[in-house]
Each structure stands twice: as structure tokens, then as C-alpha cells.
């Protein structure tokens, strides 16, 4: 069952109490809210994700109304994660964005059974590219452009790794794009569906791109990472691809993780295996078509990176 299977009135009632148990990748999140904008957003952007019966969830996100006059006058939304309130309230018009930011926060702070990497993931022919980039590097725009270009979407923000099996789980949630970037993607992908505009906390106008329906359906499948690329958009720069040492990429991936140190030796072995199975490089670009062509060439390359094994001690 997905949200799109439920009549709107039923979905609204369940969202208010006991909450919707959304399965997103390897996580089940319980979402509770009485805000109509949250209901509308979930139906449009999470409508094809599986719903579970509950009551178990990895965490509960509650987007409710505050006490007092802010319930009615210039209304606000309060974010609660498992009953705690980590942020100040925001205007109610930002409820759907607050859901996404709070969801990010919960994954970064509350997922302890999986290694959490900050990276986008796309794949083609069963082989995936990890894009572990710093904020503002153009990671989301690039991954959205790759999806518009025919790559399969797996994740915009996080890859969740099972350190016991090495499986990399996708988190195919909506992609946050600034207005300029969303215009670029809309021009390349006429069927793309965006949320209404919302201002982030810096006053930047953003939109959420709905993930392709098939990514929500395939979300439990682990991805096979064959390339790890650190993208960096630089206006006016030529497209430059530079190989990166695996040692340096391993250090970078550990830095990109929110909870690497908690896994000790198992986390180390797991990340090292991921790096060993992939080609590592940096990509600097300003022309998105050139960047896409570079990824097309990659996907046509059948070399197995695992032929270059490490020495370990």
C-alpha cells in the first residue's frame, strides 16, 4: 500500500493520528502532522513510497502547531523528533521544508545501526556512482541532471551502509534544488514535478523535485558502487576529471560520514571495501552537458576496479 492508494480523507486522518509509517530506503519513519501542507506534500512527493502498518519505526517526526497564539496568528510549525524539539518553530508555510530538514537531521543524528554517508547516489545498468560532495558543490543539481539524462535515482543526501554486509542502501527522497537549478532541470526533464517554492533559512528560494516513481518502488535494493566522484561546480571552468588516490578517498568518505567512528574496525573495513571496489576521482565542471557526457563514458567502461587490491595491515 502507498499513500496514493489511500483516499485523501483517510490519509489526512492517519497522518494526524497515529501517523503514517513511510518506508524510505532501509528506514521506516513515522510522520505525524495536522498541517494540510504536509499532507499535500507527502501525497505529491512521497505518494509512491510503501506504507507500513506500524507501530515500529526508526524515528517519529511530528510537525505540529505550537501552544498559544502562534497556532492562529501568523501560525507556526513545531518539529518534534521522538518527542524532542531540537529547533525553533518556523512559519507554517515552511512545514514541508521543515519535514525534509528534520528528516535529514534524524538520519544524521538518530540512525545508529547503519553507517551514514553524506552523498548523492545514481546508477546505470546496476552500477552506481557515489557523489560525496561538500554543501554548495552542485551535487543535487548534478544528480538531478543525471536522472533527467536516464540514470536511475538512488539518493540525493545520504547513502546508508550496512557494515556487516557492505550493502549500500539508497534513500530516494526528494531532491532539494535552488530555483536556478530547478529551472535547468525543468528544461531537461519536462515531466519533472516540483513542490511549491519555499525559502530556506538563508532566504534562498528552493523547490523539491519529486523522485521518480520507480526509485521509490526499488528503494530496498542495495547499490553496487563502481565510481566515487567528488563533484565541484565552478562557473566558467572547463570540465576536468582528476583521478584521486583511494587512500585520500577513503579519508574523504570517513569525513563525509556522520557516525564512522562509532563502528570502529567494522566501519573501517567496510569503507575500505567500498573504495577498493570503485574508481575514485574529482570532477570540476561548469558545463552540465560535458559532465553528463563524462558519466556516459564511465558507464560504458567495463573495467573492474577491484583488480587493484590494497595491502592492509
Amino acid at each position, binding site marked *: 500500500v502507498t499513500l496514493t492508494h489511500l483516499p485523501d480523507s483517510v490519509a489526512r486522518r492517519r497522518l494526524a493520528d497515529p501517523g503514517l509509517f513511510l518506508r524510505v530506503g532501509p528506514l521506516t519513519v513515522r510522520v505525524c502532522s495536522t498541517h494540510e501542507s504536509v499532507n499535500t506534500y507527502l501525497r505529491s512527493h512521497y505518494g509512491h513510497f510503501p506504507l507500513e502498518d506500524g507501530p515500529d519505526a526508526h524515528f517519529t517526526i511530528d510537525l505540529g502547531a505550537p501552544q498559544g497564539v502562534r497556532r492562529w496568528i501568523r501560525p507556526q510549525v513545531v518539529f518534534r523528533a521522538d518527542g524532542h524539539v531540537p529547533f525553533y518553530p518556523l512559519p507554517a508555510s515552511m512545514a514541508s521544508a521543515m519535514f525534509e530538514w528534520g528528516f535529514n537531521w534524524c538520519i544524521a543524528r538518530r540512525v545508529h545501526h547503519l553507517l551514514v554517508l553524506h552523498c548523492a547516489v545514481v546508477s546505470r545498468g546496476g552500477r552506481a556512482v557515489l557523489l560525496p560532495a561538500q554543501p554548495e558543490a552542485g551535487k543535487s543539481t548534478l544528480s538531478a541532471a543525471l536522472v533527467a539524462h536516464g540514470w536511475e535515482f538512488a539518493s540525493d543526501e545520504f547513502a546508508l551502509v550496512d557494515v556487516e554486509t557492505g550493502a549500500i542502501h539508497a534513500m530516494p527522497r526528494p531532491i532539494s534544488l535552488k530555483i536556478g537549478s530547478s529551472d535547468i532541470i525543468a528544461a531537461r526533464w519536462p515531466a519533472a514535478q516540483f513542490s511549491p517554492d519555499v525559502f530556506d533559512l538563508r532566504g534562498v528560494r528552493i523547490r523539491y523535485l519529486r523522485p521518480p516513481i520507480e526509485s521509490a518502488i526499488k528503494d530496498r535494493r542495495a547499490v553496487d558502487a563502481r565510481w566515487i566522484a567528488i563533484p565541484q561546480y565552478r562557473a566558467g571552468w572547463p570540465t576536468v576529471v582528476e583521478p584521486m*588516490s*583511494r*587512500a*585520500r578517498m*577513503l*579519508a574523504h568518505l*570517513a*569525513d563525509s560520514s556522520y557516525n*564512522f*567512528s*562509532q563502528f*570502529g*574496525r567494522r566501519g*573501517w573495513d567496510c569503507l*575500505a571495501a567500498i573504495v*577498493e571496489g570503485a574508481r575514485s576521482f574529482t570532477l570540476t565542471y561548469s558545463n552540465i552537458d560535458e559532465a553528463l557526457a563524462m558519466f556516459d563514458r564511465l558507464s560504458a567502461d567495463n573495467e573492474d576496479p577491484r583488480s*587493484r*587490491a*590494497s*595491502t*592492509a*595491515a
Partner: protein
Amino acid sequence: MRPDTRWRLTDPDLVWRAWPGETEVVAFSPRAGSLHLLTSSAHALLQELSRRPLTTADITECIASETAVACDVVEEALPDLMQVLRDAELIQPVGQ
């Protein structure tokens, strides 16, 4: 840095990975949960210390013989390298 000071790894379970054709090596301390990107010289030094504690003079000799660099050149560069590794809490004097 006294030449007779004996040094050891802070974490005797330190592990590392090196790939063919790469000059950088990455090390992980399970005890501290920290990860470090190392040069080949630092790697060589840590490998020696993983076998047994060594004095600064011993370390100089080991690195010089492994890298075929003159002892006086190694001696000059070693204090900086040792300081970096000490700041990273990868090595410490024996007894501390």
C-alpha cells in the same frame, strides 16, 4: 627531541591501507576511532614502531635504510614528522 627517547604507537591496533601505485596511505586507530592520511615516510615510520618501540636514533636509521636517503637528511626532517604524528596522537614516548 632527545635521541634516546623511545617511541611507540599510541594505539597498538593501528591498521592501514595502501594501494599499488599510490604514495598516500590511510591509517585507522580503532581505539580513538580516528582516520589519518599519511605520506609514505610517515607510513614507514609507523610500520617500524608497530614492530617495537624505537629511539629517535633507531628511527632515523630505519627510515634512511628503507628509503635510501642519507641519515643527516632524515635527521633533519624527522622532528617535524614526529611532531605531526605526535599531534595526531599516533605516537607517544614510552612511559606516557
